[in-house]
């Protein structure tokens, strides 16, 4: 006998499977990607970079996009995560859990290091956020920028963090699987927040803080929580970053780094998770593409291609100004990718995931 009470979904996926379906799709894809990239260290590095930038952009989008609070010190949280997890990895380097295979034990340590790094960054996010998120408007931007600089000075003066020289010899533990997992988790959390009642409060704060407060939204509380979640993922991204570049120093996490992430979020559209992803992928691959394209196009290409990095930063500045003048909501606005796709492509139903 057929039970009519079981809701049928349009997609035809059984309800029990819907929760883990993304995992079922993602794992084989990531494994295939890992296998494909294993021959080319360059492509691997590029994938890591893209992944780390996606995590950073999506997490910053929770604060800058969804909550409408402008934080420009994301590199500071990234630095906290990178340094804490690196110190942990370096001190655990020689130890292995004997009852497990070496690879598994290493990955276990790596995950622990990432989590601890993320937690340390989240704690910093709480400490910075609690006082400064009471402030309105532009002050938060300055305070977060100041925080990034304070972190840099602290690192430069701490022996444990290698002072100005930084840390080297960090075990290269990052894998495509690991990066993919964190990208997946960050996006999932961001999307879940966007659709939850927590997210609704964040959108309310973004649209009108005074009105949200008047409607009984605990604005400071929600802002601090969003800030803590965002800094946790920034810390994890920092840990991932440290474990593939293997050498970090205070200059890896400057204002410039923060601004790159801000540009990604603004370009994608403040509040659009998929927009942040697309912008992060695009802006990470663009310099590489230019670097390989320019020598082909010009005679003395070598000098031009070496200028790509030089030109990138002023271009980002001009890009920000142009975006604000022509399309202040960014490419996608608050819409997600599937909402802006052309008509003839299959669309997702209305409503947030």
């Amino acid at each position, binding site marked *: 006998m057929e039970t009519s009470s079981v809701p049928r979904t349009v997609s035809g996926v059984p309800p029990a499977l819907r929760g883990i379906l993304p995992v079922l799709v993602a794992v084989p894809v990531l494994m295939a990607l890992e296998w494909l990239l294993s021959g080319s260290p360059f492509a691997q590095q590029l994938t890591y970079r893209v992944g780390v930038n996606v995590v950073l952009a999506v997490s910053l989008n929770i604060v800058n996009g969804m909550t*409408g609070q*402008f934080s*420009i010190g994301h590199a500071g949280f990234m630095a906290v995560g990178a340094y804490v997890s690196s110190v942990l990895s370096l001190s655990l380097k020689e130890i292995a859990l004997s009852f497990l295979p070496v690879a598994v034990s290493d990955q276990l340590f790596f995950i622990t290091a990432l989590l601890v790094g993320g937690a340390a960054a989240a704690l910093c996010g709480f400490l910075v956020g609690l*006082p*400064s998120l009471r*402030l*309105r*408007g*532009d*002050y938060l*931007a*300055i*305070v977060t*920028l*100041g*925080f990034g*600089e*304070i972190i840099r*000075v*602290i690192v*430069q*003066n701490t022996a444990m963090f290698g002072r100005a020289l930084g840390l080297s010899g960090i075990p290269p533990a990052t894998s495509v699987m690991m990066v993919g997992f964190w990208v997946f988790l960050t996006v999932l959390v961001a999307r879940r927040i966007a659709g939850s009642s927590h997210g609704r409060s964040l959108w309310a704060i973004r649209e009108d803080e*005074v*009105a949200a407060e*008047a409607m009984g939204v605990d604005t400071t509380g929600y802002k601090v929580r969003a800030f803590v979640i965002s800094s946790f993922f920034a810390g994890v991204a920092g840990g991932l970053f440290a474990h593939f570049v293997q050498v970090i120093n205070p200059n890896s996490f400057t*204002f410039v780094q923060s*601004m790159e992430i*801000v540009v990604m979020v*603004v370009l994608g559209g403040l509040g659009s998770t998929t927009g942040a992803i697309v912008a992060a992928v695009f802006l990470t691959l663009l310099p590489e593409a230019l670097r390989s394209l320019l020598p082909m196009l010009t005679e003395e290409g070598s000098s031009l291609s070496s*200028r790509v990095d*030089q*030109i990138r*930063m*002023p271009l*980002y*500045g*001009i*890009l*920000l*100004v142009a*975006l*604000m*003048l022509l399309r*202040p909501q960014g490419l996608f606005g608050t819409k997600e990718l599937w909402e802006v796709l052309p008509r003839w492509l299959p669309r997702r139903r209305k409503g947030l995931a």
Partner: protein
Amino acid sequence: MAQLLQHLINGLAAGTIYALVALGYTMVYGVLKLINFAHGDVMMVGVYMGYGTAYALGRQAQKSVLGVVLIFLVAMAGCALLGFLIERFAYRPLREKPRLTSLITAIGISFALSYGFQLDIGFLPGAAPRAFPEIIQPTEWLIIGDRDVVVWNWQIMSLLIAVGLMVGLQYLVFKTRFGRAMRAVSYDHRVAALMGIPTDRVIAVTFMIGSGLAAGAGLLYAIKDTSVNPLMGLFVGLKAFVAAVIGGIGHVPGAVVGALMLGLVEEFVVGYVASTWRDAVAFGILIIVLLVRPGGLFGRVAAEKV
């Protein structure tokens, strides 16, 4: 004791430079309620304009009184023009938009200027620091004891200029017709426009004055520091902003007091703790001030308009 006195003097001298930059921030913020993030970079451009003028004049002429005046005038006029252009094409179109858009634009301009000047294409100077010509011969103006305490002529000069400009600005804001228009625009620019005040012109002129001041301050900084580079504006600008916030942003004497305080604290940290901690101090103070008195020392917290 002598050491303390010397630190005091050095701190005050550093503070006066911050004060000159902070005045520009405070003026623009007072009228537009916009943190002009690019202010420090306008200052940097002014320094390079002065640098170019000094080299165009040649070694002999740049040291004469006329030469120095000319260098200052060219840099200040050039920056006033730059400030006008930035206001006209980047901030004015966004005036009715949310404040976040102007802030992002300001950051974008700051980025484009400071990193654009690092390119070595055409007339752009490149990333390497340059030595600023000695347009004013540094001489000891006052020596106490066996060189225990030394006061330099440029320290006295910048202190006098800062105080003079502060008094001048106070006069401009509170005693002149233009100042009254500025205050009206600051209070409510829509109503001011209805009352027949040319809002756009007032804001543009305020921007030009602020940018011109930045250029002057930048030149004094360059005379003191002798080394100039495209990123100098970013940090001097940020510290000046911190000074303006400490004093209560939008408040002219507050900016000067805040800047002097910041200069003193930084000098004491360098003198008695370690020079490596200097850059963190400004932001530490900023966070504390914002926590204890969000409006700054002299500022009032504006009631939220609903």
